[in-house]
């Protein structure tokens, strides 16, 4: 079959961007429905305690208030949910309810829900709720949580340990005892959060007359929520419609089940009218999942030549009061210990993981789950090894990266790599950044008291996950996707697909892929996403699966429709379908390229004059295709990043001068959009490396829960980012695309930490904690 690649690989612009530029985005926050009421929540001001009194009488009588719910009146209509999965053997978490029952477990835990005619009135009424909580000692530190005698994080658990596991190769001890060099470090990775510019938003609309529940939900995974709502509220899933319109950022944060969204659905079912909740920024900080929060001890063994023999890693990660549902809060730590050392030919390994509860907001999956931690620890140790062996950071990587011709390769942690291109990436990076020149400049500037640093980080990224991620553990999280492609009666194309759009350009790349199968241009392909009633069921967009799995689904659906069109054309033209092809909006003769009949004509005949088709000719112009990845459990990508910084050694302030990325995401569908993903991802990695941190006091109060105090990366501080590519398509699919959404985030912080430490090296100072704030840098320098 002739595979057209006219549009795949081209930098098509996003049609849906035009709506946003015109102020015509349609977000859940913009939605107003008839009879809609607004929700606000009364939240626990304490990190842990027993609810002694909850009196909502005055609130219920306040102007504009429609209804007040407490745990007693709301929780019974929704089955509790528990964030555990079977493949994380032995993991535990308490069941969760919408509103706190008896005990509050973090500062921000919702206790009562007020519904009013406006959000302002709902907030007015919140002030009238009498809530008395007898506070209990909160567990705020993960290490302390594991000490015998420490109180339990909640009454619902038997231990503060959620999960513990060890991966170990048999040769680990021997590798360390034979090592010529061992380097080690203790690392702390701060807690941070997604801060999507559009906060979490949901409008639930239950129609009691038909039993139909429609939920407009700012999420990346509508089908998952369709299933969650159906199951938790006991509704048939075909009566649950979840619509994710424009979503103002998600990054993993909006695919978890939250108390507030569930409560809004429950309230709509109870009231039989639309209920809206839009988190305000303060609520976002104390209810959106947070990310990371790891303490890692690690050591690396090398032989005399600097060949990495083994790593030994212990990760303690702190997840808040519950493991999230339905994907758990263990996946992050699990990926941390499995991604350690991944780019390198490292035969032996031990990774220990402890996942620990505390009285804080939950942590869970967020862009580049686990990657930044594994990458930062590995790359920091590689740099320390280089320093100890007096090797250049490029040289030590060249000695240890898995050779480009040594695939397939299985890592010491058991990950299977189909084909990666670390050495090609390293060479390209070195050339692109002008490595030698930068080193010369660095040496010259040091003499003037200017301290610049260069940091490098190789990485692999997990993309295109199959069911191995969640499905095998019992999670009702789809690993497959579906597409419906149809030719309209006028010969245009429509594709409805289960992967979703949050601005990364999903709809554009799907249009490109489909266009190439049907011989049309992408602007002739209308793509619909984000509505469970109008698109087939699928996993949607997470873990970098939109392009690889969604794209392949679209490709196969397109080819199926192509075959149907050619069959009809063959019947009409009295030609063998195999002698025909599609190009430029028409059926052409495959050999000569001559136009035989237009798609518009095919559409017209099949739709309005099917009577003219020969008997037995199927007039269907709609093709349906589902696709689940087979072959490798994941398609790994790889790449390398470099960061160039200048540290003001008197103030501890770091200036980011430049950032480079060489990335191999397989077949590139749209270079413009791939680079956009990388740049955005890099900045999302640099943010927590330098600025972002959810700070807590020793009572478990988050103390910087506003955009004035929580420092997100802004334009003034972020560097320009230069990008180059290598294309190693996966052979698992026809399309050959892998994911790219998390690559930037995976290694940016690691490169930056190595760069800062490179700058600090002449002073003998070193930093092993993120964010790398002026305080921490000055402390490392001995100024504080």
């Amino acid at each position, binding site marked *: 079959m002739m595979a057209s690649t006219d549009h795949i690989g081209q930098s098509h612009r996003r049609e849906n961007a035009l709506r946003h530029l015109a102020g015509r985005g349609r977000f859940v926050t913009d939605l107003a429905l008839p009879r809609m009421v607004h929700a606000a929540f*009364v*939240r626990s*001001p*304490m*990190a842990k305690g027993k609810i002694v009194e909850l009196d909502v009488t005055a609130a219920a009588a306040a102007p504009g208030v429609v209804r007040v719910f407490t745990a007693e009146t709301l929780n019974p209509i929704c089955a509790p949910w528990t964030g555990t999965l079977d493949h994380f053997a032995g993991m535990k978490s308490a069941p969760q309810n919408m509103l706190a029952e008896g005990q509050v477990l973090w*500062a921000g835990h919702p206790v009562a829900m007020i519904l009013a005619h406006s959000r302002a009135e709902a907030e007015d009424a*919140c*002030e009238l709720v009498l809530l*008395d909580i007898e506070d209990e000692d909160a567990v705020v530190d993960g290490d302390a949580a594991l000490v015998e005698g420490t109180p339990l994080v909640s009454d619902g658990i038997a231990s503060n340990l959620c999960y513990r596991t060890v991966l170990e190769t048999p040769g680990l001890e021997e590798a360390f005892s034979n090592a010529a060099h061992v380097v080690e470090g203790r690392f702390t990775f701060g807690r941070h959060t997604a801060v999507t510019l559009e906060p979490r938003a949901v409008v639930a609309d239950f129609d009691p007359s038909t039993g139909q529940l429609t939920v407009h939900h700012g999420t990346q995974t509508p089908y998952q929520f369709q299933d969650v709502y159906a199951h938790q509220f006991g509704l048939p899933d075909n009566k649950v419609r979840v619509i994710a319109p424009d979503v103002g950022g998600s990054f993993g944060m909006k695919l978890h089940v939250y108390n507030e969204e569930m409560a809004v659905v429950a309230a709509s079912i109870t009231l039989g009218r639309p209920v809206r909740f839009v988190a305000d920024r*303060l609520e976002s*900080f*104390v209810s959106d999942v947070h990310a990371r929060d790891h303490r890692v001890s690690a050591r690396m063994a090398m032989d005399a030549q600097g060949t990495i023999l083994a790593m030994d890693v212990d990760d303690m990660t702190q997840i808040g009061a519950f493991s999230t549902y339905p994907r758990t809060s263990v996946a992050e730590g699990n990926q941390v210990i499995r991604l350690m050392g991944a780019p390198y030919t490292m035969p032996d390994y031990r990774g220990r993981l402890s996942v620990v509860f505390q009285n804080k907001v939950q942590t869970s999956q967020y862009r580049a789950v686990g990657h930044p931690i594994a990458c930062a620890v590995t790359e920091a140790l590689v740099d320390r090894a280089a320093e100890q062996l007096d090797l250049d950071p490029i040289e030590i990587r060249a000695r240890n990266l898995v050779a480009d011709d040594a695939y397939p390769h299985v890592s010491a942690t058991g990950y299977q790599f189909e084909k990666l291109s670390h050495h090609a990436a390293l060479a390209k990076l070195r050339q692109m950044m002008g490595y030698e020149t930068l080193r010369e400049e660095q040496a010259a500037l040091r003499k003037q008291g200017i301290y610049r640093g260069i940091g490098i980080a190789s990485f692999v990224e997990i993309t295109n996950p199959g069911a191995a991620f969640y499905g095998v553990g019992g999670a009702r999280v789809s690993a497959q996707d579906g597409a419906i492609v149809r030719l309209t009666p006028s010969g245009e194309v429509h594709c409805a697909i289960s992967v979703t759009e949050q601005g990364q350009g999903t709809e554009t790349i799907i249009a490109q892929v489909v266009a190439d199968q049907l011989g049309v241009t992408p602007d002739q392909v209308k793509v619909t996403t984000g509505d469970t009633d109008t698109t087939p069921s699928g996993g949607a967009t997470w873990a970098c699966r939109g392009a690889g799995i969604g794209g392949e689904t679209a490709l196969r659906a397109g080819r199926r429709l192509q075959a149907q069109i050619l069959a009809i054309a063959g019947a009409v033209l009295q030609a063998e379908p195999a002698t025909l092809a599609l190009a430029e909006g028409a059926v052409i003769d495959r050999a000569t390229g001559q136009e035989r009949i237009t798609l518009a004509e095919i559409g017209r005949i099949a739709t309005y004059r099917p009577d003219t088709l020969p008997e037995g000719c199927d007039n269907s112009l709609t093709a349906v295709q589902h696709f689940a990845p087979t072959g490798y459990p994941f398609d790994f990508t790889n790449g390398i990043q470099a960061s160039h910084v200048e540290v003001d050694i008197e103030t501890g302030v770091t200036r980011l001068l430049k950032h480079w990325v060489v990335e191999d995401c397989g077949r590139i569908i749209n270079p413009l959009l791939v680079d956009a993903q990388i740049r955005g991802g890099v900045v999302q990695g640099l943010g927590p490396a330098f600025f972002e941190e959810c*700070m807590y*006091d020793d*009572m478990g*109060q*988050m*103390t*910087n*829960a*506003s955009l004035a*105090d929580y420092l997100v990366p802004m334009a003034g501080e972020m560097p320009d980012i230069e990008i180059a590519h290598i294309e190693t398509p996966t052979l698992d699919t026809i399309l050959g695309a892998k994911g790219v959404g998390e690559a930037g985030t995976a290694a940016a912080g690691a490169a930056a930490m190595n760069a800062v430490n490179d700058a600090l090296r002449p002073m003998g100072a070193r930093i092993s904690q993120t964010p790398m704030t002026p305080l921490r840098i000055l402390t490392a320098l001995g100024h504080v």
Partner: protein
Amino acid sequence: MELKGSQTLAATPDQVWSALFDRAILEQAIPGCESLEQTSDTSFSAVVKLKIGPVSARFKGDVELSDIAPGLSCTLSGKGSGGIAGFAKGAARVTLTPQGAQTVLDYTADVAVGGKLAALGNRLIKATAQKLTGEFFANFDTALTCEETAPAA
């Protein structure tokens, strides 16, 4: 958050001691106190209005004296709820040491706030706590002195 301080009071330890249990003096001493009612020999319920820069909130709560070593030391603890603004609580260990005709009052306080105040007021809280603690003991000194000089009823 820990606060420490010392205040020299123009009164004997016994006078200071009884003032610590004196509703009227405490009412004058607590910054922003709108009402203070004695609920037992050693406890009071209070309504306090605080205004610090952009924050203005009314706290309802209790003040209690405990760990009492008469004439020497006690712990003054308070807990107040400011509604959706959050809560504040603190305990101050107070010790009295005679110094001639005067008394040196040393305190070590542990103060905490929660909820919205903690979430948003980070830059404010310590400075405010220090300021309010300072004001309390200064007011206490003033009230004590006034009491001393006032003619006996």
